[in-house]
């Protein structure tokens, strides 16, 4: 079947299997491999992308369901070589180690801050509950999101 959608600002039209997951469409058809697959139960969030500006787990969306919509992946977040403020905060606060959860985590954080530009620590933790990280203990991820919201000083 034919899907037509916008991916990172680019209009696309592709013939896909009806059962193709959005994450596989992005990775295999579009060649955008920042989003990763870390589980098979929609638990880990490594595949999180923005669909019409809101975070979704792209392993639980069919490519067909995204037709007519706007998808943004980690590759599309940085503008003209400059890190997006959330990406920059993740680096400044050491909010990533192995990097596998990172693109999904960043997209979830971007979506969280759009919904709630000044979250409390507890709200950040609740907002990122669906994104698992095994390296950081979440400590610096939380710091990064708070820093990106302009609420926490970057650690001296």
């Amino acid at each position, binding site marked *: 079947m034919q899907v037509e959608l916008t991916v990172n600002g680019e209009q696309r039209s592709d013939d896909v299997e009806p059962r193709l997951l959005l994450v596989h469409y992005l990775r295999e058809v579009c060649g955008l491999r920042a989003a*990763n697959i870390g*589980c098979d139960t929609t638990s880990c969030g490594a595949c999180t992308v923005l669909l019409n500006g809101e975070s979704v787990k792209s392993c639980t969306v069919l490519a067909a369901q995204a037709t007519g919509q706007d998808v943004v992946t980690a590759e599309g977040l940085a503008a003209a070589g400059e890190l997006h403020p959330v*990406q920059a905060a993740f680096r400044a606060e050491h909010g990533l*180690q*192995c990097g596998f959860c990172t693109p999904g985590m960043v997209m979830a954080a971007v979506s969280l801050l759009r919904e709630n530009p000044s979250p409390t620590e507890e709200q950040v933790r*609740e907002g990122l509950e669906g994104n698992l990280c095994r*390296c950081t*203990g979440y400590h610096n991820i939380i710091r990064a999101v708070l820093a990106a919201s302009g609420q926490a000083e970057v650690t001296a």
Partner: protein
Amino acid sequence: MSILGTRVLRTEDPRFLTTGGVYTEDLTDEALDGACHVFFVRSPIAHARIGRVDLSAALAAPGVIAAFSGADLADLPVIEPMMAGMLNAKMTRRLLAIDKVRFVGDPVAVVVTEDAYQGEDAVELVDVDYDPLPAVVDFDDALSNETILFEDAGTNVVVEFGNAGSLKPELFDGCEVVVSHTFGNQRVAPAPMESRAAAAVWGEDGRLTTWIPNQGAQSARDDLAKMLDVEASQVRVITPDVGGAFGAKFGADPEHAVVAWVARQLGRPARWTETRFENLISMTHGRGQRHTIMIGGSRDGDVLGYRLEIIQDGGAYPRIGAVLPFLTIMMATGPYSIPNAEAIGTSVVTTTTPIGAYRGAGRPEATAALERALDLFAAEIGMDPADVRRRNLLPPFTEPHQTAFGALYDSGDYAAALDKALEAAGYADLRAEQASRRASGGTVQMGIGVSCYVEITGGGDESGAPQENATVEVHPDGTATILTGTSPHGQGHSTAWAMIASEELGIPVENFTVRWGDTDLIPVGGGTGGSRSLQQGGAAVQQASKELIELARERAAAALEASAADLQFDPGRSAFAVAGDPDASVRLADLAKDERLFVHSIFTAPGATFPFGTHVAVAEVDTETGKAVLRRVVTVDDAGLVLNPLLAEGQRHGGIAQGAAQALLEEVVYDADGNPLTASFADYPIVSATELPSFELASMETPTSYNPLGVKGIGEAGTIGATPAVQSAIIDAVAHLGVRHVEMPATPMRVWRALVEASAQGTDSESA
């Protein structure tokens, strides 16, 4: 100003944050064009004889290229347990099971397809006849030998480290108080976010090139060569980005060898990425010990005797897990001076997923047993647990301290770490708050857990002294390359190794390229594990850098027509200058123009190092529901001098989270038939952001003399210190209600049951 000790941001990050890392699944190397996809058919039964394996329906399915069962690989050598001299050598394994399966997840066949979706369909079509045998899940069932996993071995015991006959009955003579208890240190899943994977292709020269997420390409290469029955020189392992490992990606697994075998058999590249379901049932698990402790001493708090008896679950096929009691025994008495102590261990096989290394590997178990014992002792004599610890800690030492269990502690000041942690936590205030909450009789009570530890990092392997190699090369354009035998998967070696070399060479950190994990490029290396990398790999980079300066000095002397002894190297300019004549100078990079400028160096440490510290945890427990919430974790982790606080703190955070998760939540569970009940992230309660607080880290840096950087390992401190502290905090929250112990993980059900039992006992004793 020195760059060492400063918070340099990671050079790795921009790539990870934008295009994402290139993990094995992401590879687009043209050598892998046209790769087929390998899917494993895994046993759904814990223990069974294999009858007929019918591949015909799968072979007829769309897109299926081939399918193979164990019989097809029968010519390949059996896999012997590692350290076959120490472990029961009869407990061997096949790449694909042939006669028997021994755990749910044991691979019995593979289906190979053109695309991945076809494989998921076809793998269901393989029909295997199983003749079920009794499962062996429980330690006691394994020890009883009623059902034996390996008939040739005649026993389920893999190895004994001492035995009951060697225990001294008089160990507790003279003790006023003796307490004993048996408890578990449960099986957990390492669960790196990236599951296992492989991509493999054979060249026309008969050499295998394989990409595997691993912790040390060189040991992965050697494992593969053994499993495939080829020379190590015929195997090239390349390490893509690795999405976490935590001990579970050391070496190569049978699946990695099968993927390579399929690629050779079919004459085309082959790829495999396991699902999370496969990962949770077939990647090695960690921990899995049962401890029986006995602790005795005086009523005023002197610990005089300690005995630790360990049973280790090795899982279905003995791997490093079976050896873990060795480390647990070595660290049995931790940072304490205990006049009489003994420890023994027995490893058994069970019809469960094999146990391997998981962050800490043997040392968290030692600390958990000892700290639990001290808490039980403190409770029995009615003394504050922190006071009991302070009273029994070894005094500060700077000359190595030999323990009764064969460990040689390099340097330590354990009481200082304890006091610092208590002060940072506000211990006295916490106890006051606890007392007032107890007095108020509210339903949410607060507990404080204190855990002191010392651990071993950077130990040598059986091949001898702890060592690592590095190559540092300066290029004419002012950039530099470092080749390292370590293998980062989140630790930040690209940044850290560049900092170390930058300090010596005066080349900016961003001008370095750090490479690892390609066995053709770096044939020798110990990889990253056991918290060894900085103290050996980093020290090797420093040593190579210093030697490179000396090599360059000779060239500079020739270029400047000066005596080498008169030349000074100025890192600020990355140039040599003649003493007293700064205008007569030559840049380091310019000395690489006519001839390559590089040094390969091997650093050898005199021994392992022993980081130490204290963790304080604060938990709240709802006494009506049993729900425990972790409120604070305050830690002092002294791993010698700190190269980059940003990276060291990150290691501590991650370890604390995993340690806390074991105490609070995580457990791999099997039913009595050996069926895994935690085979997805929907069922395995991997810790998330909502279950943890932010952590409070206090710093303490006691240098070691074992390497010129003065550093020890920091990777595993978190799991070692945090697990017992968090468990203890939860128990302490309900101790005044008569609870002395709650098993890990301290789920609401377990805490609630402990409260109910304590209440019933209280009622019994009142009525008696």
